[in-house]
């Protein structure tokens, strides 16, 4: 899996045409053979999601492991997991843009795609969780819905509806705006009439006049300004949703920054899981270089330390609060029936990530893929611990219980990964996974100046 860092060998000579050729090859001609195999595999996994949701619609909510005590189970844990994946995508596309990090141009398209695909998967979970998905439109304040009632805006559940819809819509628009010039490139290099029609329609008749670019760039940077508070607000809202309750383990003021940093941490891990195989599969090692992976893993290490700090602070706050229920909750997490889930989280999120202190590991693509996978496991269990363990072991001992997955929970969770990777593979088939117009501004200038940006 390891690839020699192109920057350490002779740097490749980039011309504009070469960049266009490399990045339009897959959308305009047949993808490499492994792509088909990957689509079959993850497509099959995605089928499990549909199967699970279909059976749920027929049979009802009882097919899942959720019960009267643990009334937020897999649904909400996985929902937060996927939303967090989206958050890291916006970090790269918007926050790094505001910080003028030009290296982001190599990875921002992939992470923006990751954002869009992760949000639509996250959205499935709360819509299922309502129990009657066919009336989910009641969440939208529609005056004509026949209820004669508006939703309860004093409830954090409503905040969440607004946070997610706002964030999802803005992310899709941002993603699409970024794609316009590249769709125009595909239109102008299309080999068949249907490709010309498809990309000609998708690019909205983009011409690339100086005036177009000036408005486009302004709109693009304004999207970053809009998306940054949206994403931080959105994930803080989800954290607040938990923190405003009195459930032990949730009722903590640290939750919003805890969730946002955890989201960036886990989402960057997911970015590595996507980027490392993708750059190999599509032969993009010259564009998504080892330097880029190293920069992502450095950010990941930094936020990973914040996450580790919060884990310690949670324990300290519980002890310092002198609240017996709060103390008991954390004792239960560490030594209770689900202690394995807690220590798995610690091992992955606090332990494994320390490997990133070593430069040789940060520059080893295979190692990063493995670390990314383990951190994803750890971050899923973080949400599992927060949601399930708190509810399992709340105030009233007679209500204490043990939550376990049913086969349908497993299918739903596995299917969501299949759905995510399927969408990503299809996206990589029809659009350039690196922004052609943006990467040219970086690589051609670097080539001219003979130095790294």
């Amino acid at each position, binding site marked *: 899996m390891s690839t020699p860092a192109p920057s350490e060998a002779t740097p490749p000579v980039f011309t*504009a*045409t070469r960049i*266009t050729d490399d990045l339009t090859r897959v959308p305009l001609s047949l993808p490499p053979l492994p792509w088909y195999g990957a689509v079959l595999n993850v497509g099959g996994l995605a089928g499990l999601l549909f199967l699970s949701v279909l059976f749920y619609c027929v049979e009802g909510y009882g097919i899942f492991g959720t019960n009267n005590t643990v009334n937020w189970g897999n649904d909400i844990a996985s929902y937060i997991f996927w939303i967090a994946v989206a958050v890291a995508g916006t970090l790269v596309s918007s926050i790094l843009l505001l910080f003028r990090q030009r290296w982001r141009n190599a990875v921002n398209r992939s992470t923006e795609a990751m954002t869009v695909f992760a949000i639509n998967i996250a959205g499935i979970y709360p819509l299922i969780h309502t129990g009657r998905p066919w009336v989910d439109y009641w969440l939208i*304040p529609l005056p004509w819905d026949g209820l004669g*009632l*508006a939703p*309860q*805006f*004093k409830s*954090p559940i409503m*905040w969440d509806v*607004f*946070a997610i*819809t*706002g*964030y999802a*819509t*803005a992310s899709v*628009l941002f993603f699409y*705006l970024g794609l*316009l*010039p590249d769709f*125009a*490139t595909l*239109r*102008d*290099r*299309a*080999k068949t009439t249907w490709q*010309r*029609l498809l990309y*000609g*329609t*998708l690019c*909205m*008749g*983009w*011409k*690339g*006049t*100086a*005036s*177009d670019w*000036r*408005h*486009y*760039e*302004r*709109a*693009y940077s*304004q999207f970053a300004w*809009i998306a940054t*508070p*949206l994403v931080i*607000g959105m994930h803080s*809202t989800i954290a*607040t949703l938990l923190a405003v309750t009195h459930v032990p383990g949730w009722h903590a003021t640290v939750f919003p920054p805890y969730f946002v940093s955890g989201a960036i941490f886990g989402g960057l891990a997911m970015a590595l899981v996507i980027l490392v195989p993708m750059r190999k599969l599509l032969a993009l090692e010259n564009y998504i270089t080892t330097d880029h992976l190293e920069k992502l893993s450095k950010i990941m290490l930094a936020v990973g330390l914040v996450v580790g700090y919060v884990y310690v602070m949670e324990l300290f706050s519980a002890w310092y609060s002198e609240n017996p229920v709060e103390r008991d909750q954390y004792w239960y997490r560490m030594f209770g029936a689900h202690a394995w889930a807690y220590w798995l989280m610690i091992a992955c999120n606090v332990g494994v990530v320390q490997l990133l202190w070593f430069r040789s590991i940060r520059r080893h693509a295979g190692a990063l893929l493995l670390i990314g996978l383990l951190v994803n496991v750890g971050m899923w269990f973080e949400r599992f611990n927060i949601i399930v363990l708190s509810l399992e072991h709340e105030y009233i001992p007679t209500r204490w219980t043990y939550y376990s997955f049913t086969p349908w929970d497993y299918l739903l969770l596995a299917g969501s990964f299949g759905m995510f990777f399927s969408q990503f593979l299809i996206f990589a088939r029809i659009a350039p996974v690196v922004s052609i*117009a943006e990467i040219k*501004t970086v690589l051609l200038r670097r080539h*001219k100046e003979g130095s790294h940006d």
Partner: protein
Amino acid sequence: MTDADSTAVSTPTAAWQVGFFADDDGLKAAARACRTAGWQVDAVTPWPVHGLDPILGLERSWIGRPVLGVILLGLLAAMGGLHFLGVVDWPLNVSGKPYFAWPLFVVPVLETALLIGAIVNFNLALHTSRLLPNPLVEIVSARCTDDRHALVVLGADPAAVRAKLIELGASEVGPLVLTSALSIAHGETAHV
């Protein structure tokens, strides 16, 4: 329509001449020289060329203030709407909270305002460049989304313009002929 928006490409005439340039600096130098000569100049580029706008006499994009404006309006409208909902239309006592509990409304209000801002921002970007789903749009050259900047120049004497463009280092020079994007064959440049 402002001066800046009336681009050469939207008003094609045979009198326009086009010169192709491979690099940003060559394009900017040529654009400056042609402007100094008193000719009308526009450019079509595969990537944004920074520093080109002032040379072409283009002002900073105006879409910032409208977006900020609708975000602020969105804040007011959403908060006002929730006031109407909670106080006028359907006052409901929820665990003793005030009817107009504004701190509880900050999140939906902020998110709604930013959502409106995002939608307006996107649509302004499309509007200012007159972008619509249109595969039949006319383009200068297929290479203008690949590796060539096109400098489009209108002067009184086409021959003089072409001579100047060659002198300025254009790789190809000729009269502007717009071609439908649908009919462009791969690898061909415009008929110049």
